[in-house]
């Protein structure tokens, strides 16, 4: 804020609050000089019109009064050119962002160090005007804002306190209700053998539940069996084209007794009991099924638990022909299979599935999608691969390919390079 002091010289107030306040009173004196031109002040002995001179004129004689007035009009209050441009671009007198995008000038820095001195030189008469302005403002300002605190309107968001609800769900620490446990396994099964194992296990379990007249879907309470129990399930066979309740063929009586004992508890007892007891009950019968252990891959204890305890594939294929015509059985089987394999089934697929084999086929088709490009299909076609006179290209054959095939590509490129057409 520039103001003429008692001694006739023009001074600037650094405090923007004061500037604003005074602006309400002295509307005629709201013209603010450019800070960069402060040091170019002409002494007060000169005419009041010749307030500022440019650097050229300063070296010479005092400028013509008319010229000086014109100069004043352009340089008085608008600030530097960049500031005027910003105001014009934004269309307001108070544009957002930094005032000077190129940083603070040396003149401004120097000016900032001096303000206390200039404040002291503030004339008495202006001080009175300031007091009057403060009084006038106090009447308008609401009571909850402390009086005398400098209010500075923000032009950017920087430094402002955050507005809004801070106690959002994401801001709060995790609670017990936020804990999520997946119904299915964490990673989807992709190997063909693993999918067969999952389907076989689900089929054997449902056959058992069906024969025991238990609710079928209650098997989903047990996400993973003990290794010994899984061995027993793996050893069971299923008669093709039989009913669910009668299809199961046990390897021996001990296995049957153990599995019946275990599965009788699934619907009624708690899961922990189910998980603990089978290990003890099955220990004896587990030895009997060790005949097939050559298929089991021994893994170190450090590595994460492998799917199906390292079993690679199923011996029995009879489960594939089990029908899924009954809706309850179908639902229970698909639910259990989804849980074991990690694959979900869309409604149209569920509607069209009628056997276990179709279920496995669908999941395998999802895992290995058909090639969309004809070239990929033809490359995988065994019949075409066996014929020696067929060549399948995956990309378009161009003239350069023909040149390469005929052995003249190198010659052509060498000639072009010699002429400087290619690098």
């Amino acid at each position: 804020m520039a103001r003429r002091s008692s001694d006739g010289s023009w001074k600037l107030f650094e405090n923007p609050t004061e500037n604003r306040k005074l602006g309400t009173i002295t509307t005629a004196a709201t013209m603010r000089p450019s800070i960069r031109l402060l040091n170019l002040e002409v002494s007060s002995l000169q005419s009041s019109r010749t307030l500022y001179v440019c650097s050229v004129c300063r070296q010479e004689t005092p400028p013509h009064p008319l010229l000086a007035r014109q100069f004043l009009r352009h340089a008085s209050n608008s600030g530097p050119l960049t500031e005027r441009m910003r105001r014009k671009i934004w269309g307001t007198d108070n544009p957002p962002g930094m005032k000077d995008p190129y940083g603070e000038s040396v003149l401004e820095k120097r000016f900032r160090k001096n303000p206390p001195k200039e404040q002291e030189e503030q004339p008495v008469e202006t001080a009175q005007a300031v007091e009057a302005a403060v009084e006038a403002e106090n009447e308008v300002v609401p009571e909850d804002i402390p009086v005398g605190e400098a209010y500075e309107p923000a032009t950017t968001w920087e430094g402002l306190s955050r507005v809004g609800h801070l106690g959002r769900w994401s801001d709060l620490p995790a609670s017990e209700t936020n804990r999520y446990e997946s119904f299915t396994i964490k990673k989807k099964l992709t190997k063909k053998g693993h999918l067969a194992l999952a389907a076989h296990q689900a089929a054997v379990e449902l056959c058992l539940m069906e024969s025991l007249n238990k609710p079928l879907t209650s098997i989903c309470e047990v996400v993973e069996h003990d290794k010994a129990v899984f061995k027993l399930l793996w050893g069971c066979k299923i008669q093709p084209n039989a009913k669910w309740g009668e299809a199961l063929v046990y390897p021996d009586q001990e296995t049957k007794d153990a599995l019946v004992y275990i599965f009788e508890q699934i619907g009624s007892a708690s899961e922990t009991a189910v998980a603990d007891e089978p290990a003890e009950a099955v220990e004896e019968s587990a030895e009997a099924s060790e005949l097939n252990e050559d298929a089991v891959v021994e893994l170190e204890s450090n590595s994460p638990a492998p799917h199906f305890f390292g079993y690679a594939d199923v011996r029995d294929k009879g489960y594939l022909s089990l029908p899924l015509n009954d809706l309850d059985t179908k639902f229970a089987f698909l639910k259990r299979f989804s849980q074991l394999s990690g694959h979900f089934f869309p409604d149209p697929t569920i509607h069209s599935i009628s056997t276990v084999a179709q279920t496995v086929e669908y999941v395998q088709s999802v895992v290995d999608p058909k090639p969309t490009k004809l070239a990929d299909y033809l490359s995988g076609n065994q019949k075409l691969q066996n014929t020696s006179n067929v060549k399948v290209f995956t990309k378009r054959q161009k003239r350069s390919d023909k040149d390469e095939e005929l052995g003249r590509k190198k010659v052509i490129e060498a000639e072009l390079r010699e002429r400087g057409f290619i690098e």
Partner: protein
Amino acid sequence: MPVQGIKAVATARNGVGAFILQCKRLDFHYCDWAGSSRGMNAFLKHTLPSFAKANPQIEIRVSPRPHKHPVIKGHYINGREKAICVRNLEPEQISNKANLLKEASGEKLKRTKKPIASINESVRGIWSPYHGDNKTV
């Protein structure tokens, strides 16, 4: 003076002793996206294996030609080539076109003006002034 036939070496007649197929290569171009290649794609999927097996002397090349109509191109041992556009054709029609190219000689098609054509020389032989009636000059 007994009449003597002109000595001539027997010229090769393709198919008399042996038959050499004139078509040496067939190129099948298709597009994955365009609908005009639907028949061609079906042909390549289902009919091409048997076609290739039946014609082992022809080299078959299959390559995509994106955003273009499907084409069968035949290359012949006389250096010429023939191309047939098979857009929107059914697989059976495409199979016919492939057979047409396979059986073609590679020569340009010519209009036959006369009902009989022969590559044999005339049975009357070449005229000679020393044969036949003695003419007094």
